[in-house]
């Protein structure tokens, strides 16, 4: 029956059922991935971020919150220029992680 409305899906990140396969795989080859302090330097300097919503800080969170598809979509914007890696205060090899996500 059409009521003219329908159930809205929950907006909660359901941490109990998040699939962390990709993130854990990345963690094995890039242990530094854990050390992000969410300072946003990568996003601020991002050449693609100048024109798009590209943000590595968010992308990393997407992977940890079960939004892998969104993350992969976001990567498409990346130009792989490597400025993010250059500015990261924790020395995270961001460009490598970006490539590894797509592997």
């Amino acid at each position, binding site marked *: 029956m059409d009521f003219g409305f329908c159930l809205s899906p929950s907006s909660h990140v359901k941490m109990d059922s998040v699939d962390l396969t990709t993130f854990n795989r990345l963690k094995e080859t890039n242990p530094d991935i854990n050390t992000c302090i969410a300072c946003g330097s990568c996003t601020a300097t991002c050449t693609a971020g100048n024109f798009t919503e590209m943000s590595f800080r968010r992308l990393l969170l997407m992977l940890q*919150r079960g939004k892998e598809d969104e993350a992969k979509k976001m990567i498409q914007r990346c130009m792989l220029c490597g400025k993010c890696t250059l500015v990261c205060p924790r020395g995270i090899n961001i460009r490598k992680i970006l490539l590894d996500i797509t592997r």
Partner: protein
Amino acid sequence: MKENILIIGGGAAGMEAATQLQKMGLTPIIVEKSEQLGGHVAQWDRLFPAFHPAKDVVEKMLNQVKDVKTYLNTEVTDIQRDDNGFHATLSNNEKIDAKAVILATGFDIFKAERKQEYGYGIYNNVMTSVELEKFFRTGHDARINNPKKIGFVHCVGARDVKVCNTYCSKVCCTTALKQACEIKEVFPDAEVYTFYMDLRMFGPGYEDLYLKTQKDFDVKCVRGRVCEVSEDMDGKLVIKAEDTLFGKPLKMTLDVLVLMCAMEKNKSIDAIQQKLGVANNTDGFMQNQDMYLGMNTTAQDGVFVAGACTAPKSLPDTIGEARSVATQVFNYINNK
């Protein structure tokens, strides 16, 4: 020059001040309301940032004050002042005359029950940081039963206008990360989450601890305050928070939730403090003369303050203040 100096409180501040005053040739007298010296530090297992056993520090301090006249299980019930100094009456009816008084009464732990939404005292597996520390010390807590997921809530009773504490409690961030590492040491397979608003890693080695927490212990830091806790059918805790960096509400099930309780002013001294004429500051702690040059003196001549009775402080802060107050008292006595 054998003047008595009355030190109210036998924690880190009181003991260290007594040690220094004794070395300066004065006669410190410690009045401690509990049955032992050492204050909160004696309840702690290890200290941040380097996981140093608290026992070591406390034992050294105890050793230094073993010749200091100490009253345990005793409170100051009355204090009067005249031209000859201070005259205190203790709960055991003894009377002490002193030339100066040091308030080293420290802090109380915020009563976690007051943040009702976290369900402390309601849900079995919600505990405080103090209780977790006790677990590390004794190896036993009925709530900790091989947990798989553990959460830490920062700023419980701090930076929260709803409980009338707007100040930052200074040490909880570092303590939370220290305890997160420690619980990972005990349960390496557990997932540990901390829910923080800001991570204030202000001291030497603290930022390294933060890095260690992330790198070596795989502790996951989520920026967002837990807003509510409930229990599911299995007695596990269901928590909700906003992942503010991700911009989405977050929900997860935990086995244990640890509340990082803030420091609050120790109110058991209020009556004596009032008699001495020492006011409180806007955070409810004791008001010192100013926060730069007069941090150990109060509006009342001869009444000194040291340690966490004026604001939340770390152990090194407190010891530094205790040493500084000793100098202040020494000069005060000499210039009289």
